[in-house]
């Protein structure tokens, strides 16, 4: 007789019920642990370790595209067997993706099939209580519809409904979320972008558009400056072009306050004072001017205002001054400036981190000027590279929806609702508009909004609690909200602060199409598998909301109620896209991604700029009319309000708050650390792996410290990421101070993410 739970009855064979592993998984476990190599067998011989031969015919193959906010927007080839995604590869047809993904991309199957994935619509009884109930989709949407009709009744309009959405999913049909908002009426939108707005405005003032060369032509450059970008981590596919340029004799200069992995691969690594980039660029420009290395033809015939800029340089800028501001030795500045000006062609890759400062836009203008005056604009292998939207000319059918008849809304000037807002022109003409709040000041805006206040927040393709600034303020702001709906795949901090969560599809579970803001390839995204559990795509959710709105109040929502993601993907294509890609039909993309056919790999190769003057504007009156300087003058950085600089750049193992929660990524990144220079650590009596507090007026975090020489002596570095198991976020420390530019083209100024300061002490 057995006398304890789980022990076998007497007489039973050795197959014990509590033996946890099957034969098959036992073997797998042994192989995985490497134990097989160490078994002491003397007579038995190892069976050959070759894997079963791979037979492509066993799999269904689909085309997908990584829809994350990443330069590389990889074209993916997906292998499905028995309706399950087995593994993914990079598409070989794209010369940019070149058959490989990145460490995060290869983890996609972990994401789709994670046991942690949100499966069903759920309701939280008491926000933040942790008490969740499962509801049907109909119940969830009815609940939301009733609330929307309630606030519409109360306020006479739907301005009490706000949308916060950004770059969580760049599949074009996901602009259907904005479309859903429009189809309900005039609503409140968190507009702008935390990412790159200052630089976008700057490039628009200088050149008339943000439009970079094909990154694949970087291999033809003779001098590459990577300024405030870290492609070794954040655009791994671009590195091959950097290496190719170097192989052909180009010099690679990397400018970053931190000795990043990219800097470690450069020929020259400059670690300037954070935020001094404008001064550094102007110092280099002054030296180029002094040496007479200006491209006279360009500045005379293709530009306006150069003489004024030159006068400004002579009167206000010296190399010694730039050296003092930046901490880079003067003779180094001179040397690199001269090398840059004499290499033909030369290029500067302007990173987004570089412009996340109160003087970010001004810095980009100064760097643009350096590239322009040396004659590198419009040159293959040259250019001031930042980004582009050339391949984004879809119909935005999902986004463009009409407000229901009789809708009222905001009365006032309407700007663009973001860099991807194709409706901007039409909005200007309407009697009513959406109410725009600055996404970069979400907390403050939610607190301040009146007439009506924001009552309902819809969050999709965004994780405000992980990504928005001043987390303590955001907590207060959320307390004002009557209902929070988040559309998500995993239990983020935002979901924790929501009333309703709706499970959304991954890229493998919907049809869409994807472009990149860096390279020029466009990829089809086929639906490879059925949506897992009860997940729906954003547009299917919109259709279901419409159904419930109209059932309760006919005519209250114009969004179509029958959605097929494949049809809606098809509707995005137009003649312009087909011509640009050189395809006759979207079906051609099933064979692989297609590259835009541009007259040259160089942007502005015809030197027809889109500025008011039609020329490159060293002096931009438009810029001045918007409250900035007409010339790319030096602008002071933010004054420190705590002893050390706080930098919160991107990790290789996450795209903001995505991927960090997957087990494969947690292998590399188990917990957050604050990285300190040995000198700073010594001054504070902090040893490696000590638990410390990092604190400033905005808030505080507690984490362990790592000592490293790669971080400057006056900096604290914490990678921004979301950790599944920890209650941690850098946003406790980052306030919502605005960058100088961004309002012109994206509706709101950017945010000075890297102009933050903090102190540190042993905990």
């Amino acid at each position, binding site marked *: 007789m057995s006398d304890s739970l789980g022990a076998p009855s007497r007489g*039973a064979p050795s197959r014990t019920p509590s033996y946890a592993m*099957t034969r098959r998984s036992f073997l797998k476990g042994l192989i995985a642990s490497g134990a097989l190599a160490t078994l002491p067998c003397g007579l038995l011989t190892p069976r050959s370790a070759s894997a079963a031969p791979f037979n492509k015919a066993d799999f269904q193959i689909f085309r997908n595209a990584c829809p994350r906010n990443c330069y590389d927007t990889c074209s993916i080839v997906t292998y499905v067997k028995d309706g399950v995604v087995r593994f993914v590869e990079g598409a070989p047809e794209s010369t940019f993706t070149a058959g490989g993904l990145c460490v995060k991309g290869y983890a996609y199957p972990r994401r789709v099939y994670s046991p942690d994935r949100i499966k069903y619509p759920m309701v939280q009884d008491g926000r933040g209580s942790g008490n969740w109930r499962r509801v049907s989709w109909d119940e969830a949407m009815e609940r939301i519809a009733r609330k929307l009709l309630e606030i519409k009744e109360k306020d006479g309009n739907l301005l009490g409904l706000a949308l916060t959405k950004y770059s969580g999913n760049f599949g074009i049909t996901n602009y259907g979320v904005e479309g859903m908002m429009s189809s309900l009426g005039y609503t409140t939108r968190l507009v702008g972008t935390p990412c790159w707005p200052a630089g976008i405005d700057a490039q628009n003032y200088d050149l008339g558009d943000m439009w970079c060369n094909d990154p694949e032509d970087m291999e033809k450059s003779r001098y590459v400056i990577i300024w405030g970008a870290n492609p070794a981590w954040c655009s791994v596919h671009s590195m091959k072009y950097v290496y190719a340029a170097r192989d052909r004799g180009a010099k690679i200069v990397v400018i970053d306050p931190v000795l990043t992995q990219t800097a470690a691969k450069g020929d020259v690594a400059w670690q300037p004072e954070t935020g001094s980039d404008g001064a550094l660029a102007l110092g280099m420009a002054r030296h180029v001017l002094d040496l007479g290395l200006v491209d006279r033809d360009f500045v005379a015939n293709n530009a306006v205002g150069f003489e004024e800029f030159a006068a400004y340089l002579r009167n206000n800028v010296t190399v010694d001054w730039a050296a003092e501001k930046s901490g880079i030795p003067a003779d180094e500045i001179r040397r690199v400036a001269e090398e840059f000006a004499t290499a033909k062609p030369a290029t500067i890759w302007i990173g987004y981190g570089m412009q996340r400062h109160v003087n970010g836009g001004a810095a980009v203008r100064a760097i643009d000027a350096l590239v322009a005056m040396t004659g590198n604009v419009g040159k293959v292998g040259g250019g001031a590279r930042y980004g582009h939207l050339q391949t984004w000319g879809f119909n935005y059918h999902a986004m463009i929806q009409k407000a229901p008849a009789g809708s009222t809304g905001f009365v006032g000037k309407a700007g663009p609702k973001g860099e991807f807002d194709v409706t901007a022109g039409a909005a200007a003409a309407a009697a009513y508009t959406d109410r725009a709040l600055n996404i970069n000041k979400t907390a403050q805006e939610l607190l301040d909004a009146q007439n009506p206040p924001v009552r309902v927040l819809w969050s999709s393709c965004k994780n405000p609690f992980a990504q928005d600034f001043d987390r303590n303020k955001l907590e207060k702001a959320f307390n004002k909200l009557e209902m929070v709906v988040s559309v998500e795949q995993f239990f983020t901090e935002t979901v924790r602060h929501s009333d309703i969560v709706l499970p959304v599809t991954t890229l493998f579970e919907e049809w869409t199409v994807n472009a990149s803001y860096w390279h020029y390839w466009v990829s089809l995204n086929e639906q490879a598998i*059925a949506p897992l559990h009860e997940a729906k795509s954003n547009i299917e959710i919109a259709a279901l909301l419409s159904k419930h709105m109209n059932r309760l109040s006919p005519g209250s929502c114009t969004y179509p109620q029958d959605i097929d993601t494949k049809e809606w993907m098809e509707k995005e294509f137009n003649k312009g896209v087909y011509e640009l890609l050189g395809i006759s039909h979207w079906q051609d993309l099933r064979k692989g991604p297609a590259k835009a056919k541009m007259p040259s790999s160089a942007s502005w190769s015809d030197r027809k700029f889109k500025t008011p003057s039609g020329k490159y504007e060293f002096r931009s009156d438009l810029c001045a009319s918007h409250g900035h300087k007409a010339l790319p003058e030096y602008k002071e950085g933010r004054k420190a309000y705590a002893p050390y600089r706080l930098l919160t750049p991107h990790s290789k193992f996450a795209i903001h708050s995505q991927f960090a929660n997957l087990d494969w990524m947690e292998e590399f990144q188990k917990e957050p650390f604050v990285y300190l220079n040995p000198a700073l650590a010594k001054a504070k009596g902090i040893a490696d792996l000590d638990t410390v507090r990092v604190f400033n007026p905005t808030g505080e975090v507690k984490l362990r410290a790592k000592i490293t020489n790669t971080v400057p002596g006056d900096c604290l570095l914490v990678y921004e990421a979301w950790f599944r198991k920890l209650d941690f976020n850098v946003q406790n420390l980052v306030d919502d101070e605005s960058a100088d530019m961004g309002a012109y083209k994206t509706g709101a100024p950017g945010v000075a993410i890297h102009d933050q300061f903090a102190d540190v002490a042993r905990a």
Partner: protein
Amino acid sequence: MNHIFPTPGTPRDACLLRALRDLFSARGADGLRAASLALDACRTMFGCSRSTRGAPPCAPSGPLSGLDTIDTPDHWRTTEYAFNRLFVGPMAVPAPPYASAWLETEPRLMGEAAMDVRNLYHSLGYAVPDEGATPDDHLSFELDAALALLALREAANAAPPSSAPEPSPSTLATDTQEAWRWLVAEHMGAWVPRFVQHALAEPDVPPAIARALAMLLCWQEDAAAACSTASIEETITGMQGRQDA
């Protein structure tokens, strides 16, 4: 030759399987309540086989044992919240009720284990609803399949014995027994105990869920042990048969 496979306590097994299936597939408080009451009714009706053999009872002892005397909406609502925290979400769950989450070297859904049970369901002429979207290896589906196999075994044993001198290997009874043994002893045996242990180790597991988990483990272990007993007897009978022939 008569090959009678022992099927002790089949009505009890069926009662348990049905109630456990319904409990682990419950969508809310009402479903949990109904299934939990049904589970208690099984115990009342059939007793606990372990207590009759002197083994520890199926339910945890102490204040959690016995039938649920609290039957208020509040109580079941609390149970529902805990159920979701343990098994459903939206937060990451400590005890995902899917075989693949426990049998793969790295926890995931739709692993080999899911394909295994899918094949089993197919051989029964069944499939999970929305196959491809629904993980086949959710506990409730596996329990449903066990219920089906139980019924098949009953039917097979009730049929008159074959008149052939030796049974062909593909009789329904043999296949059903083999399928049952694989599902209950080998497959569920490989993951259910760990699943139950992890779930019970969580703080604040409500009594209804704790009881259900204990009874699930109890049932699985007993059924697996019975399979072992059955196969011993089968081997002995088979050997005897060959000696006789």
